[in-house]
């Protein structure tokens, strides 16, 4: 019981982190949501907990929902098409951290639900309330944003043909 509870809480924390992208804020989100779940006598299930976390996060970040903001990314597009960028990026935590910080909460959320929790686009649609097409395109764009960030900020392994 306690082990499954611990796993559930860790999932909740990671999900909250994907939304808030801030450890302390994620802890607060999880705590608020967890207390609410317990007070409501709700089931100790991932879906229920995620829903509680999500509603709290978006209550706190209504503006982000109302006004979708694209960060001013300094993406350096390859100037020379003849240069092939090696797609095997050297992902590391500090740069991933920075890349994630440039994403919107909804983008990190969708990416997290897909990449970490393994939810399908349809399941993500149910959780986020976004249209399936929107979820798919958001996932695609978000992955590209992360990749572009790494392409722009890593020591590229280039080869000239």
């Amino acid at each position, binding site marked *: 019981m*306690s082990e499954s*509870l*611990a796993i559930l*809480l*860790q999932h909740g*924390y*990671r999900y909250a*982190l*994907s939304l808030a992208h801030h*450890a302390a804020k994620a*802890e607060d989100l*999880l*705590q608020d949501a*967890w*207390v609410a779940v*317990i*007070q409501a006598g709700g089931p*100790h299930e991932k879906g229920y907990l995620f829903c509680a976390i999500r509603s709290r996060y978006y209550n706190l970040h209504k503006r982000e929902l109302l006004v979708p903001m694209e960060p001013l990314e300094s993406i350096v597009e390859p100037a020379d098409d003849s240069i092939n960028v090696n*797609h*095997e*990026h050297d*992902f590391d*935590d500090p740069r*991933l*951290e920075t890349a*994630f910080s440039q994403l919107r909460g909804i983008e990190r959320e969708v*990416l*997290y639900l*897909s*990449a*970490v929790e393994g939810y399908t686009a349809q399941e993500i649609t149910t959780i986020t309330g976004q249209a399936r097409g929107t979820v798919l395109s958001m996932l695609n764009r978000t*992955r590209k944003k*992360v*990749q572009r960030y790494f392409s722009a900020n890593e020591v590229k392994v280039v080869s000239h043909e």
Partner: protein
Amino acid sequence: MSEQDETDKAVKDYYQKKSLSAEKLQQLMDVAQLAEKKPEAEVINWRSRWLMQRNVSIAASLLLAVLIAFQWMSVAPTQEQLVASIAKEIAINHQKQFASDFSEASYAGLSQVMTKLDFKLVDPERLKSKGFEIMGGRYCSLDGHIAAQVRLKNSAGEIFTLYQTSSHETFQTLTEHVARAKGVDIEMWNEGGVFLGIAG
């Protein structure tokens, strides 16, 4: 590995490394455990609170009863104390020998002029045979109640003072008493709903 898979793996690895601190985790798990125990705890709390309130109420009532009893015992004077107290008051009034404010020569006459009295002066049966002459009267008080002081003179020319007041609860118990206070002989009794005391 495709670019998408590569990114997803990096994202997964990144988040898998993130975890709630052991302290925070324990704290949240404790919250859940407390919530599970809460209904039982609430019942126990409710019962113990109710029992405690009941016991406190009983103890407070008993304490109050004891205090009231002590208060009553300490405040309510005994019959002897009451007799002594009123006898002393009469003796003091007698010794002052204040002049009369009303010079009527009968109880009925004094009753008519002493309008502040809440009772009618009585012509005491036991004094009729003693041949007292009424010299006059004035207001005074006995045990905090308004009273009449009537100056009397016997055939030997000796001055007596007679006190009459409505027979309040305090005086009703004083049916027949003789006392001596401050060297003055005092006789007290009740007659016709009036408390009387004569000093001389």
